[in-house]
C-alpha cells in the first residue's frame, strides 16, 4: 500500500478566537496502491481541493493521519518530510496561475529539481517538454504568453520531473474546453503508463473520472465514501 | 453585524492609544516631566519665582509615584476634559481649544461637504466618459492642484488676491473665511476627483454594467442606478481615511491666512513651547478624526449591503 489516509478532518475558522467554524472535510479515509488511479468526485464546495492539499502535504489536517509507505507524514521530522514530499506531487485546477508570472517557463520547470538538489540541465527539460508534446520554444516564454492547455502540459511535466510515486490531480481539466480536455487526459494517461505513478484524480465530472479511474470515492456533505 | 462590532471596537482602542502616546512623551522622555506638563514658559516662571508651588504641582501630578501608577490618574483627567493649564494663554487648555476648534471646524465642515460632493460628482462624470471633453480638461488641472501642497496653493491664492485687490481682508469672520476655505476646497476636491474618477472607471469593466445596458437603460440610468451605487462605498472609505490628512492640510492653510483656528494655535504653541497646549490640541484633533471616521464607517455600512448583511469582506 502506497498511501493511506485515516479519518482526516479539516475545518477553517473565520477568526482566531474560534467562532463560526466551517468544516471543509469532516471524515476522509482511503488507501491507494502503486500504479492505480483512484477518483474523488463531488460537487463544488464539497471540500475536494482541501482534501487534495492535505494529501499533497501542503496543509496539515486537524485530525487523522496520512501514511506514505507506512509512515505518518506529519509525525516525521521536518527534513524527512521535505524529502518525502518529492514523492507526492500535485497539479492544480487553474493552469494560468500555477506558474510564477515573473519566471520564464524553463526556470519554473527546473524549480523542483533545484529544490531537491537533483541535477538538471537545459537538455533534460527540453526532453520533458517533448514528452508532453510541446516544442522547445515554449520554455523561453512567460506563463501569460501561453494557453491553458499548454500550461497544463507544462504543469504535468514539472510534477513528473522529480519522478513522484503519487500524482494528485485537482480538477486538471475543468477549466479547459472539450477538445483540450481530451488531449490533456491523454497526456496524463501516457505519462502514467510510462512511469507507473499512482494517481488521485479529483473532479466534479463523473463521466471523465469513470473513464480513467480504477476506483472512485464520492465526497458528499464533507464525508468521503 | 459582527464585522461592524469589531470595527467599532477599533475607535476606543485608537483613542486609548493616542492618550497613551501623550502620556509616554510627558512621563518617559528625558527631562523633568513638569516641563512637559507646564510648558517651558510656565516651568521657568514657577521655578524662578515660586518654587513652593512647583513642589505642590509635583504632588498634584503624582510625580512621586512610579510611572505606571501615574497612568490611571492621567487618563481620568483626560476623560474629565482636564487637559492642563496653558501658561502662554493664562487659562485652561480646554477653553482655548474649545474656541479655536470651532473656527477650524467652521473651515473643515463646509470644505469636507463641498469637496466630497463636488469631487465625487465631477469625478463620476469624468470617469464615466474617460477621454470625453470633461475628462480632458479637468483631469490635468486637478492633477496639478492635487500635487501642490495646500498651503502653497494658499500662498499663491493670497498673492493673487492681493495683487488683483480682491482680497477680502480680515474684517469680519465671514469674509476672512472665504480664502482659506477656497484653498482647502480646491485642494481636497482635486484629490477626491481623482479617487472617484479612477474608482468609477474600474467599475465600468464589471459585467453588471453590460447587464444593465442589456435591459435597455439609458446612460444616465446605468450611471446613477447601478454604477454609482457600487463606486460610492469605496469612495466614502477613502474620503474617511483622507480626513486625517485634510485636518493636517487645513492647519497649514490656517497659518498662511492667519485664521485663528487650531493651526495657528499649534503654531503659537510650538513657538512658546507650550507643551500642555500642544498635547491637548493633538488629543482633541485625533478625537475629531476618530469620530468622523466612525461616522463614515456607518455610512459605508449603510451603503454597502455586503458589509451590512455580513458578507465575506476582508
Amino acid at each position, binding site marked *: 500500500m502506497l498511501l493511506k489516509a485515516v479519518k482526516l478532518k479539516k475545518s477553517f475558522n473565520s477568526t*482566531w478566537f474560534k467562532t463560526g467554524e466551517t468544516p471543509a472535510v469532516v471524515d476522509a479515509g482511503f488507501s491507494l496502491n502503486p500504479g492505480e488511479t483512484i477518483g474523488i468526485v463531488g460537487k*463544488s464546495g464539497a471540500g475536494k481541493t482541501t482534501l487534495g492539499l492535505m494529501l499533497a502535504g501542503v496543509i496539515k489536517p486537524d485530525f487523522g493521519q496520512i501514511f506514505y509507505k507506512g509512515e505518518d507524514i506529519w509525525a516525521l521530522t521536518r527534513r524527512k518530510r521535505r524529502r518525502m*514530499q*518529492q514523492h*507526492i506531487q500535485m497539479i492544480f*485546477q487553474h493552469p494560468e496561475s*500555477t506558474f*510564477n*508570472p515573473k519566471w520564464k517557463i524553463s526556470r519554473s520547470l527546473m*524549480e*523542483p529539481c533545484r*529544490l531537491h538538489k537533483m541535477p538538471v540541465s537545459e537538455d533534460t527539460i527540453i526532453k520533458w517538454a517533448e514528452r508532453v508534446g*510541446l*516544442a522547445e520554444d515554449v520554455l523561453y516564454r512567460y506563463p501569460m504568453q501561453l494557453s*491553458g*492547455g499548454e500550461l497544463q502540459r507544462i504543469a504535468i511535466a*514539472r510534477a513528473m520531473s*522529480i519522478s513522484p510515486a503519487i500524482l494528485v490531480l485537482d480538477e486538471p481539466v475543468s477549466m479547459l*474546453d*472539450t477538445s483540450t480536455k*481530451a488531449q490533456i*487526459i491523454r497526456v496524463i494517461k501516457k505519462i502514467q503508463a510510462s512511469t507507473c505513478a499512482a494517481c488521485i484524480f479529483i473532479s466534479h465530472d463523473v463521466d471523465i473520472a469513470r*473513464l480513467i479511474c480504477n476506483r472512485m470515492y464520492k465526497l458528499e456533505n464533507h464525508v468521503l465514501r | 453585524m459582527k464585522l461592524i462590532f469589531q470595527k467599532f471596537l*477599533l475607535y476606543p*482602542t*485608537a483613542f486609548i492609544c*493616542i492618550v497613551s502616546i501623550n502620556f509616554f512623551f510627558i512621563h518617559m522622555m528625558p527631562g523633568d516631566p513638569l516641563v512637559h506638563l507646564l510648558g517651558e514658559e510656565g516651568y521657568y516662571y514657577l521655578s524662578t519665582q515660586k518654587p513652593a508651588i512647583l513642589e505642590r504641582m509635583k504632588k498634584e501630578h503624582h510625580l512621586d509615584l512610579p510611572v505606571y501608577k501615574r497612568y490611571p490618574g492621567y487618563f481620568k483627567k483626560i476623560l474629565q476634559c482636564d487637559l492642563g493649564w496653558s501658561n502662554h494663554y493664562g487659562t485652561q487648555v480646554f477653553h482655548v481649544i474649545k474656541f479655536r476648534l470651532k473656527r477650524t471646524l467652521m473651515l473643515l465642515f463646509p470644505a469636507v461637504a463641498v469637496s466630497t460632493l463636488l469631487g465625487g460628482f465631477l469625478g463620476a462624470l469624468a470617469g464615466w466618459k474617460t477621454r470625453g471633453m470633461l475628462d480632458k480638461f479637468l483631469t490635468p488641472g486637478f492633477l496639478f492642484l*492635487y*500635487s*501642490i501642497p495646500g498651503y502653497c496653493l494658499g*500662498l*499663491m491664492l493670497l*498673492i493673487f488676491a492681493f495683487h488683483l485687490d480682491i482680497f477680502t481682508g480680515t474684517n469680519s469672520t465671514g469674509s476672512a473665511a472665504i480664502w482659506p476655505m477656497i484653498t482647502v476646497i480646491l485642494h481636497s476636491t482635486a484629490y477626491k476627483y481623482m479617487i472617484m474618477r479612477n474608482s468609477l472607471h474600474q467599475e465600468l469593466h*464589471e*459585467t*453588471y454594467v453590460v*447587464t444593465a*445596458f*442589456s435591459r*435597455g*437603460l439609458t446612460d444616465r440610468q446605468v450611471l446613477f*442606478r447601478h454604477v454609482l*451605487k*457600487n463606486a460610492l462605498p469605496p469612495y466614502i472609505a477613502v474620503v474617511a*481615511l483622507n*480626513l*486625517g490628512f485634510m485636518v493636517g492640510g487645513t492647519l*497649514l492653510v490656517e497659518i498662511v491666512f492667519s485664521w485663528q483656528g487650531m493651526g495657528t494655535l*499649534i503654531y503659537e504653541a*510650538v*513657538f512658546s513651547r507650550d507643551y500642555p497646549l*500642544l498635547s491637548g*490640541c*493633538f488629543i482633541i*484633533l*485625533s478625537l475629531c478624526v476618530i469620530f468622523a*471616521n466612525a461616522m463614515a464607517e456607518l455610512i459605508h455600512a449603510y451603503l*454597502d449591503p*455586503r458589509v451590512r448583511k455580513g458578507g465575506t469582506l*476582508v
Partner: protein
Amino acid sequence: MFKRNREIFGTLILLFFLGITFFGDQVAPFDMDQLFAPYLSPGGRHILGTNNIGQDILSELINAARISFMVGFVAAVLATVIGTVIGCAAGYYRSVVDDVLMRITDIFLLIPALPLIIILVSYIGPGIFNVIFVISISSWPGTARVVRANVLKLREYPFIMNARSLGANDVYIMFRHILPNTRELILAKVTLATAYAMLTEAGISFIGLGDPDHTSWGGMLHDVMEGAGLINGLWWWYLPPILCISLAVIGFNFTGYAFLNSDGIKAVDQGKKNNFSGKNNSPVSRDTDMIFMAQNLCISFKNKAGNRVMAVDSVDLTVCAKDKIAVMGETGAGKSILLLGLLKLLPQGARVSGAIEYHGRDMAGFSDEEIRRIRGVKTAYVPQAAGNGLNPVLNIGSQVAERQIIHFKTDKKTALKQAQTLLADMGIKNIKKRISDYPHQFSGGMKQRLLLASAMLSKSGVLLADEPTKGLDMGNKKAILEIINNSSAKACVIVTHDFWFAKRFATTIVVMFQGLIVESGPRESFFSTPFHPFSQSLLAALPSRGLKVRCGYVPGRLGDFQTGCPFLARCDVKTGRCMQRPPLFRQKGHKVRCWHYAS
C-alpha cells in the same frame, strides 16, 4: 498616449532634480556662507536675488533640494521597509499575527499624521534625523495594508502551493515567489511615499520645526513668512520653492503611477494580422419572419501590443422566429462578442463592420431610443453569472423587476410581485423573504436563475444567453434547461460549451472557430454526422464518446493563417486547397467552411 507622456514627463522631472541633488556644489553659483546685501532683486550676479540675511536664493534653492530629497527618500524607504515587513508577515502568516498587526495598522491610520508629527518633533526636538524618523513612523500603514492585500492574494495561488508541496521553506517562498511578484507595488509605494514624505517635511519645516542648520524648501517658505517676504511681494523668494515642491511631487506621483500601471512583462502579440479580404459569397436566405440578421459582421479589438485582432470575422447569422440556436466552439472563438454585437453592447474600442438588420431594418440607422427598446423590450440578454453579472449592491428584487419598471412603467409593487411569481416558478424557495436579499447571498446556480428571471420577466421575443450552464452541476443544469424550454421567447440564441445542454435545447447548432462560423446545421444531423473536421474533433473528445483526440494540439503558435483555412494547423485531412480560405459550402442541410465539401 496621454498616460505615456505623463510617465515620461514625471521621469524627466525626477532626473532633473536628481541631477541638481548630486551635482549641487558644481551648479550652485555661491556658497551658503557667502553673505551679500539682503533683499536684492533678481538680476545681475544673483539670478533669483537674495533673502533676508543676504544669501543667494538660487544657491539656497539648490542646497534645499538636496535636503528635501534626502529627507523624502530616506523616510520613504524606511516607511516602505517597515510597511513591507509588516504587510508580508500579516499576509503570509494570517490568523493571530495578521489580526494583531492589522489592528495596529488601522489605529495608526486613524491618527491624524501631521499633528502627530508636529507633537513628536516638538518633543524630541528638530533635527534632520528626527524628522526622517518621525515621518517614516507615521507613513508606513498605507504600504503595510496594500502589501498585505497582495500577499494574501498571492499565497493562495497554485504556484505558491506547488512550491510548498515541493517542500520549500517560508524564506524561499517569500524571496523567490512572493516578493518578486510584489516588486512593482513596492517600487510604486516608494516613489509615492517619497512625494508624501517631501510634502510632510515641507509642512513641518514651514511651521518652523525643521532643522535650522539644513534649510529645505519648506524651511525657505518659513523664512519668507518670518522675513515678511510675502507682504512685500518678493515673488522671487517664495515662488521658486513653491514651484520646486510642486514639480517634485508631480514627478514622483507620475512615476509612481507608471510603476503601478506596468505589468512587469511586456505582452507579446498573439494576435493575427488584420485582413478584411474574407469576402463571403454564400447566399443569405431571406425569411419573412426573421428577427435578427447579421451580414458579413466583423468585430475587431486592439490588443495590448496595439494590433487589431478579429474577434468576429465575416459572420452571417439569421435568427428567425422559433429558431433555437446554440453557438458552440472553443474559448476565445468570439461567441460572446457576437452576442454583444447583436445588441450593440460592445465595449469601447471595438471596431465593427458589416450590417445587422432587425426585422429587415438596418440597425445602424436606429436612434438610441430605438436600440434601448430593442434591448429592453424586444430581446432579453443573459450575461454570464460568474463574477458580477448582478449588481452586488442592489437587492435582487429591484434588479429582476427593473425591466418592467423602466420600460412598461409598471409601478414598483406590481413589478416586484411579478418578479416574485416568476422566481417562485423557477424554483427559488422562500422567495417572499429572499426578494430583498443581495446577490452575494445566493449560490452560483441561483444567480444564474436570477439573471434569467431578470431577462425573461418582460416576456421578450428573443432570448440571448451567454453560457447559462457554465460551472453548474447536473441538478442546476436541468433546472436551467427547463426554464429556458418553458420560456415564452419565440427565438433563442445561446452561447454554450455544454454539449449535454445544446443537445437538449437547440434546433440549430452553429460552430465558431477563431471568429468564423465553420459549420451550422440542424441538431439531429449535427450530432450524428458533423462535417467540418473541427466539429468532428469536438464531438469525438466528449467523455461519452471516449475522449478521442482527433485533431490534436499543435506545438507552437496559432495564428498567421489569415489567408488560409483557420483550422489548417490542426486539421488532419488538409489538402493543398486549404491554403486559401474556404467559403461556406452547402452539404446535406449544413453549411460547412471546408474545401472537402466543395461541390
